[in-house]
């Protein structure tokens, strides 16, 4: 006795719980897109008047919006780049120490402390930068300019307060350090023990094992961690606004009183007193920052996808 049941008549009974849950996830998923679209639309609409603003509306000598925003965009990328240059090697070192070198108890404690660093509000970092770090670094900067002033990066005249882009980058590096460290640590711990033991068995030293097994395995993880850190460094506002001595120019010198400022810090500084077209101009710079972060994230995605074979996920 055989009954042939048509394929489309077999159906799992629809349960209320399933439906509610799937609807909830769809709503949650589309909500984030809706919020992003709303922010983008708001920025676009509000920044339209900035693109046709007359030179009189801009602070400084900028003739049009692009001349105004270019030094800011440069400063944003420059400070974030410097911060990452300082933070990435340090973060990898800390993560390796925690995952492969430190005794377990110490590693745990250190991990907690690093995570704690992520919880410190940026305004506190700003106060620390202006009150402790800048005065501490100033004498060091003076001698750096004295001895290495011939290198364009360290050209004088040195800032008398130490509130330069290098100080800002160090503060930013400290701020992004916990993010990069935490992710790197997780990635390094996921390295298959077989790989590690195999390389040790072949006679590798611990460093060789790390260089041959752990780092290649964690490479894409390191990149995505750095990109997350970069995201924070690009958007950081308060600490930069408080610490940096800004000047709307493209300058590569690290130790002078004139430093390129960042988009976010420029908005924070000028928004309170802005009115009329000034507000639109600031919002338009916000749009530029939005585009920059989007672009940076997309590039990071491309890099990670290319190296998918070695990613920590498989």
């Amino acid at each position, binding site marked *: 006795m055989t009954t042939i049941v048509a394929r489309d008549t077999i159906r799992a009974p629809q349960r209320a719980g399933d439906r509610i849950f799937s609807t909830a996830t769809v709503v949650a998923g589309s909500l984030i897109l809706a919020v992003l679209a709303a922010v983008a639309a708001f920025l676009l609409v509000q920044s339209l008047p900035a693109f046709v603003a007359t030179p009189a509306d801009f602070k400084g000598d900028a003739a049009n919006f692009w001349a105004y925003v270019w030094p800011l965009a440069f400063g944003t990328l420059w400070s974030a780049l410097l911060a990452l240059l300082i933070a990435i090697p340090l973060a990898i070192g800390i993560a390796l120490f925690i995952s492969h070198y430190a005794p377990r108890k110490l590693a745990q404690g250190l991990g907690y402390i690093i995570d704690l660093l992520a919880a410190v509000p940026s305004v506190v970092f700003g106060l620390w930068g202006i009150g402790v770090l800048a005065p501490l670094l100033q004498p060091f900067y003076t001698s750096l300019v004295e001895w290495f002033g011939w290198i364009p990066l360290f050209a004088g005249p040195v800032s008398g307060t130490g509130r330069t882009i290098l100080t800002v980058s160090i503060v930013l590096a400290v701020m992004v350090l916990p993010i990069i460290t935490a992710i790197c640590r997780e990635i390094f711990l996921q390295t298959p023990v077989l790989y590690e033991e195999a390389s040790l068995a072949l006679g590798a030293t611990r460093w060789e094992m790390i260089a041959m097994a752990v780092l290649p395995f964690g490479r894409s993880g390191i990149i995505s961690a750095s990109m997350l850190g970069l995201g924070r460094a690009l958007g950081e506002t308060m600490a930069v606004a408080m610490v940096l*001595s800004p000047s709307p120019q493209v300058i590569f010198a690290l130790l002078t009183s004139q430093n390129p400022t960042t988009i976010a810090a420029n908005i924070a500084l000028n928004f309170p007193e802005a009115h009329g077209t000034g507000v639109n101009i600031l919002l338009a710079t916000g749009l530029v920052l939005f585009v920059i972060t989007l672009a940076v994230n997309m590039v990071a995605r491309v890099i990670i996808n290319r190296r998918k074979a070695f990613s920590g996920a498989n």
Partner: protein
Amino acid sequence: MNFTRFGRPAVIAVVAALALSSCAANEAAPAASDAATASALTGTLTGAGSSAQGSAQEAWIAAFQTANPDVTVNYDPSGSGAGRATFIAGGSDFAGSDSYLKDEELAGTFAACAPTGKAVDLPVYISPIAVIFNVEGVKDLNLDSPTLAKIFKGDITTWNDPAIAALNPKATLPTTAITAVHRSDDSGTTKNFSDYLNQTAPDVWTEKPGDPFPYQTGEGAKGTSGVVDAVTNGTGTIGYADASRAGKLGVAKIKVGDKFVGYTAEAAAAVVAESPLVEGRDASDLAIKVDRLTTDPTHYPLVLVSYALVCTEYAKPAQGELVKAYVSYMAGTDGQSVAASAGGAAPLSADLADKVAAVLESIK
């Protein structure tokens, strides 16, 4: 077990609520007794503008609301430009502004004023601006305005520059580089500082005064506290800030006539009292053209004058009454002494205070 787990926070909450509410009861008591003697003003008053007036406004509001418990005063220190725009659009009943209304602004209409009324500027807040410095081994510093202008413009770069040495024969000036600190945000303090230099040293300081710092030299810092911090923590630094915030830092004396004058509240009030009013305005408009070029050594011409912008006749008479009462309090003896202790302001001279009072009397 469960009781102790949930009970303890509950007990704390109850105790805290009791403590807090009893506090509030204490505060309310004197206000209630004042109400008997105070006028029967009621309503809400909205103002916006100058952040320089911010701390004074807070103190004024606290005192005024205690005396008039049925009145609520809101002041948004959004900046002078934004404050004027809000007032013109009718979003506020009065504005605080570090600069008086421009002629073209006066020519327009003010939404809060009655058609027969117009807006006027009333000086209510005078604050001397101090030139602060932090140079090792230097306690007293004399500067004339061309030298000051050159320092902030970046033309003079070391402390032992001959121009500074000539003005300070007794001081031992170090070879340290000068770091001139200015405001990185828009500020009425910058505008007045710039105006002083532009008028007294026009050959050096060629830029017209404005809220942003005009030159791309020196070091920027956020807000008055940022400037004071930078000057305090740096080496060979000089900056300008509201005099009340100078603290223990060295304060330079500026050259007025043949003498070097340090800031005092009296000297700041004196220069404003003897400055002429801006010409070509209505008699009730008390916009002051500060006499930066004064040669009288009892004057300190580096001052910021901040105004209350009000209507002579309000579209809503009730708001007119409130503005009249509040601004009268601000410009009166009590209000000025409150501002002096809260924000380090220099009180209005008696003569000027009388003029302001006379204008306020006519507000409808």
